[in-house]
């Protein structure tokens, strides 16, 4: 397993140490802390009924944000349903991420210049679509990649294999990430496949695969950066498996992880926490302090408070909005229904 920082925040692999400035290192930590707070607040807001669908992210910060940090603005993200943080750091305003959670179409309206799709609910679909975006980027001659994420369970889908295989056959500009957090809802990763690693599934597509310590933000960053450089140099796509863990439930829709996960396992993974080890690493370099961390926490809480307020105040959806978003030119059945609902809505 590819690793740079161990659990104590010590560099165990100097050769692959990514070339990041002090400011960049601090920014990475800021994003991870911010996202941990976002997760805590999102769970609380969900419990209060102020958010809807929410898939917890705590534990996966290195995997999600380390990989995102290696991207450029022109890169295209095809996220899964748990990958909202990457969208936020790619430019999706926080209040829109909350609208996505609540189930409002404005949450899915990517701002101009934010190259990404809304979170994909159909597990695997983002993989085949990513192959198309990756081929499109290659054909357009762009120095950019399409990156997509799925979980360990998702590697059992046909679209997972087809997506990688298509991208491989076309030498498309793709990075495929598998965030292996050990469980697909209640099903442990061992029940998905007899394969020893998920990264080795790259062999079936004839592409490069790498298993990375997904709790080590520097390793995830370095691996993604490497994959990106290879892809835009025309050396083909890459599959990266990040070994990670989610501390929370699968989603906030009634999943109870104590039914399938032991407290021992949780505490074992908490020792590997990506924030703990990166904090130690930065403190060792005098780049991080409790004060700096509290500043991020306060900022996150403030932003979240404002964003949820903005989401709450956003105009309610109408059936006529939905009708007008179906087609460029409405077919006759929808022209009729538009009139019908316009009349209803004006009452």
């Amino acid at each position, binding site marked *: 397993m590819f690793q740079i920082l161990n659990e104590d925040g010590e560099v165990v692999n100097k050769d692959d140490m990514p070339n990041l400035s002090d400011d960049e290192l601090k920014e990475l930590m800021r994003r991870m802390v911010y996202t941990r707070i976002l997760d805590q607040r999102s769970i609380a807001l969900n419990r209060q009924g102020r958010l809807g669908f929410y898939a917890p992210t705590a534990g996966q910060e290195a995997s999600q944000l380390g990989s995102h940090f290696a991207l450029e603005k022109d890169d*295209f993200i095809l996220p899964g349903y748990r990958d909202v943080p990457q969208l936020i750091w790619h430019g999706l305003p926080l209040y829109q991420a909350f609208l996505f959670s609540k189930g409002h*179409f*404005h949450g*899915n*309206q*990517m701002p101009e210049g934010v190259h990404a*799709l*809304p979170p994909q609910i*159909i597990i695997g*679909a983002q*993989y*085949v*679509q*990513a*192959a*198309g*975006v*990756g*081929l*499109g*980027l290659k*054909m*357009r001659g762009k120095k950019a990649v*399409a990156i997509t994420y799925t979980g360990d369970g998702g590697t059992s889908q*046909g*679209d997972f294999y*087809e*997506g990688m*295989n*298509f991208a491989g*056959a076309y030498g498309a500009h793709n990075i495929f990430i598998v965030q292996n957090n050990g469980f697909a809802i209640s099903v442990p990763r061992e029940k998905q496949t007899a394969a020893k690693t998920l990264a080795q599934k790259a062999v079936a597509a004839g592409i490069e695969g790498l298993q990375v310590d997904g709790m080590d933000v520097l390793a995830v960053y370095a691996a993604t950066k490497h994959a990106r450089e290879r892809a835009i140099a025309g050396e083909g796509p890459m599959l990266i498996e990040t070994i990670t863990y989610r501390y929370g439930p699968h989603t906030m829709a009634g999943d109870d992880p104590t039914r399938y996960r032991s407290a021992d396992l949780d505490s074992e993974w908490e020792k590997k926490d990506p924030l703990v080890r990166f904090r130690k690493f930065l403190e060792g370099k005098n780049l991080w302090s409790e004060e700096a961390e509290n500043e991020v926490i306060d900022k996150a809480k403030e932003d979240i408070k404002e964003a949820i307020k903005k989401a709450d105040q956003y105009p309610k959806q109408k059936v006529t909005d*939905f009708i*007008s*978003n*179906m*087609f*460029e030119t409405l*077919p*006759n*059945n*929808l022209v009729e229904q538009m009139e019908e609902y316009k009349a209803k809505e004006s009452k």
Partner: protein
Amino acid sequence: MAQMTMIQAITDALRVELKKDENVLVFGEDVGQNGGVFRATEGLQKEFGEDRVFDTPLAESGIGGLAIGLALQGYRPVPEIQFFGFVYEVIDSISGQMARMRYRSGGTQTAPITVRSPFGGGVHTPELHADSLEGLMAQQPGLKVVIPSTPYDAKGLLISAIRDNDPVIYLEHMKLYRSFRGEVPEGEYTIEIGKADVKREGKDVTIVTYGAMVHASLKAAEELEKNGIDVEVIDLRTVSPIDMETILESVKKTNRVVVVQEAQRQAGIAANVVAEIQERAILHLEAPVLRVTAPDTVYPFSEAEEVWLPNYNDIIEKVNTVVNF
């Protein structure tokens, strides 16, 4: 004007669009150097290059995903599914994804994709080649479903489909590929999607149909004329959305309707046409609207196609029932 088969008209439409818009991409299994299993893409790779017309790995779901991804990069994909019986492999990409792209992104992303695919019986294909599955597609909001029956319609509708900025499922009946030639204008012309065509005018009974059943209906109409029954034949050309305006105009004139489809009775789109007519024109009807369809069994083993597929005799019988109601 040139005399063309439907397949030649389809190739011609693809050529016109490949030439006109550099974002048009044609891809699928064997569509490149081979020119397609029915020669629908014959010569196109040679003329436009491998970057525009290319083969894919053998995986329909991947083809659907590829089309969506390419559309997100500003291309105008025209993927082919070799036989529409294989659509089950790609239903998520079509119905679960591309059909919903504009809606789910609040209009910020679109899927200007035309999925071409052959279907239809009467040519003794092996299992799951000929099944009529347009009914599945017609039930998905966000899709338009086009089924031409003549070379002229095929070309004009395919050009319109490719230029449409929303996904269109374009189904090509295998039996109609080469069974006759028709006048097809050179160069570009379009036929509006969602517009039916009156293929034969009549005043006694309206037949609403599409695909190969258009020709069976026209043949039935000729026979019925000998018995003094004047049949109007409406070719829907687009089965979703349905052109109710043309149908209602005809119903108000003839007061009798038979809907004819090749699909099984529980499939296809005939029930939808009947429902729309009864909601909108029940006071104009002299008789119930009847349907000619295939039986509700799995598509037949090839030897049994003749006894299973609806034909012009079935149509004649139903028209007589409606006339004598």
